[in-house]
């Protein structure tokens, strides 16, 4: 690299730390026929360091993350199971260690090299590749899918991918992406069209063994925005989302979405037993004087009548500090295990938001 290029580089650095304590209970299998709720107490700490360098359309960006989980044996076992099941990406750049009451995780959260020009955008590496139009449910987002039905808000995931964007003159642009993974691969192409009255997206792709095609749209309607996605798989059944969000007087923001998942197993058993047909989600949020934010999330499974409610209060203070306190409430029938006449265990799967105990959490974060 020549001195001239080095001089033209602009560096940026920053990060954030966040600590949270959660108290709830989880349904724990003590034996083949014995499920019991046990205490779940978990302290989480996460530190992220960000680094970026930009010059003449080129940009390198990276994030390193360290996570620490301290809790009782059930909490740490649940965390370990979740982390072990998560997709490590194309290159497993994660060090996971822990036993008993402490789990540590160090990983490369983002690392990408990007190039942007008038007609072309290129990127390779570990990054967010968010192909969604809607919020709670995003069937078109095949590269960095986020489980928004999880009662615990998840981190924005990454995808190890190669990405290209073509931006010819006019309202239409094209995007292509390929993401290899240790177990399977994903690829997709989409056309985006931004017109004054509508944003449209058409997508085709291959997602872990099945091909898909879909479309999304956003349109301003009655002072709000109507957003929708439809996704059709060759083998699996289609999924549809429709939602609407707008700001009301008094800075009250309301988002509502409805999701139809044809993939559901009507009998409630088998591979798709955790997928139900219809869901509804609502977010009501109000920010007051920048420092206070009050939010209420509500997610319901219309197929079985179970639901989750999560009130959340955030308070900013000082320069970059934020405290939050929230709670979960669940309503739904739990999974039950009984014995048939021969003594073999018979599992009766509960509702979608069953098997979950109300809980509370408090957290403090600092960004710089």
């Amino acid at each position, binding site marked *: 690299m020549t001195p001239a290029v080095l001089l033209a580089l602009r560096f*940026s650095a*920053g*990060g*954030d730390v966040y600590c949270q304590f959660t108290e709830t209970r989880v349904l724990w299998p003590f034996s083949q026929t014995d499920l019991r709720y046990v205490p779940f107490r978990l302290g989480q700490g996460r530190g992220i360091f*960000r680094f970026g360098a*930009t010059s003449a359309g080129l*940009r390198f960006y990276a994030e390193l993350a360290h996570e620490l989980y301290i809790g009782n044996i059930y909490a740490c076992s649940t965390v370990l199971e979740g982390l072990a099941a998560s997709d490590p990406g194309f290159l497993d750049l994660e060090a996971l260690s822990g036993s008993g009451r402490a789990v540590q995780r160090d990983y490369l959260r983002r690392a990408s090299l*990007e190039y*942007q*020009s*008038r007609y072309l*955008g290129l990127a390779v590496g570990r*990054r*967010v*590749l*968010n192909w*969604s139009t809607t919020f709670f449910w995003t069937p078109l987002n095949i590269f*960095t899918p986020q489980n928004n039905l999880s009662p615990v808000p998840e981190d*924005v995931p990454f995808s190890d991918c190669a990405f290209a*964007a073509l*931006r010819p003159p006019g*309202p*239409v*642009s094209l995007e292509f992406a390929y993401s290899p993974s240790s177990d399977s691969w994903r690829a997709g192409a989409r056309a*985006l069209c*931004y017109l*004054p*009255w509508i*944003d449209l997206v058409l997508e085709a792709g291959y997602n872990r063994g099945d091909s898909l095609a879909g479309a999304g749209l*956003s*349109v*301003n309607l009655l*002072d*709000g*925005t109507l*957003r929708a996605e439809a996704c059709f798989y060759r083998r699996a059944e289609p999924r549809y989302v429709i939602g609407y*969000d*707008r*700001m*009301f007087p008094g*800075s009250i923001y309301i988002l509502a979405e409805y999701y139809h998942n044809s993939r559901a197993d009507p009998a409630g058993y088998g591979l798709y037993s955790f997928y139900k047909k219809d869901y509804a989600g609502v977010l009501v949020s109000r*920010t007051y*004087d*920048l*420092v206070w934010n009050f939010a209420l999330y509500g997610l319901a499974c219309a197929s079985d009548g179970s639901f989750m409610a999560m009130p959340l209060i955030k308070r*900013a*203070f*000082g*320069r*970059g500090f934020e405290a939050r306190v929230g709670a979960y409430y669940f309503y739904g029938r739990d999974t039950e295990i009984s014995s048939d006449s021969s003594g073999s265990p018979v599992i009766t799967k509960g509702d979608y938001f069953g098997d979950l105990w109300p809980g509370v959490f408090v957290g403090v974060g600092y*960004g*710089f």
Partner: protein
Amino acid sequence: MAIISVFLLSLTAEEIIRGVEDLTRGTTTVGTYRMEVIRPDYQNTYEIRFWDDRDKSRSLMVVTKSSTGKDDGTVFLKNRGKFWMYLPKAGKKLRMPPSMMMDPWMGSDLTNDDLVHESSLSEDYDSRIISEKEVPHGTRYTLELVPHEDAPVVWGKIILAVDMPGYIPVWAEYYDEEGKKVRTINYSEVKTLGGRRMPAVVEVIPGDKKGQKTTLTLIDIRFGVSIPDERFDVNQMERWSEE
């Protein structure tokens, strides 16, 4: 001096308002400002680069730096009355609901509309001069602006003080439809920026909240700059985020 006095006497409220808008916006404007949002026990600072094309009603703002780092690279684009936002950390581009235009922008005491100028003082308000007085370097005119019935604004009226000659805004008071003062804007530190003498600091103070204000400080500004169409292209927002 006599010539200036005759000129001032012939000014109408509409001409003064148009002069203020021409001074502070021009037809096209490119610049950078620092926004400090101050609360009794909280403070946040943003550095924002902006491009404004008044004739074609389009503007672009990029948060180049924020004190918490959370909003770095966030892009706001207004084009033909529509509004998009790009959030780099979520990797998501959003068409914003029109109802968000009148909402506080990034928690500040300014609305989206204040920043992207969806409404125009000269086009959306009827104005009249309600007083004038001599000040050390000329005359200070106080004007009352009442919005047209169909104007896309939330104010009941605005009282604006302008120093002439020079069309220098001094302060503005914003009232709601019940006649209650809801915010005051003070303009200060008049200096030459982009070849024009204008206030470099704009302080926005909400009417009923003690210890709370938002300060905009112009760092640089250029007027009459040719801005290519691609700057306001929704497809290019990711590019401006990383610029």
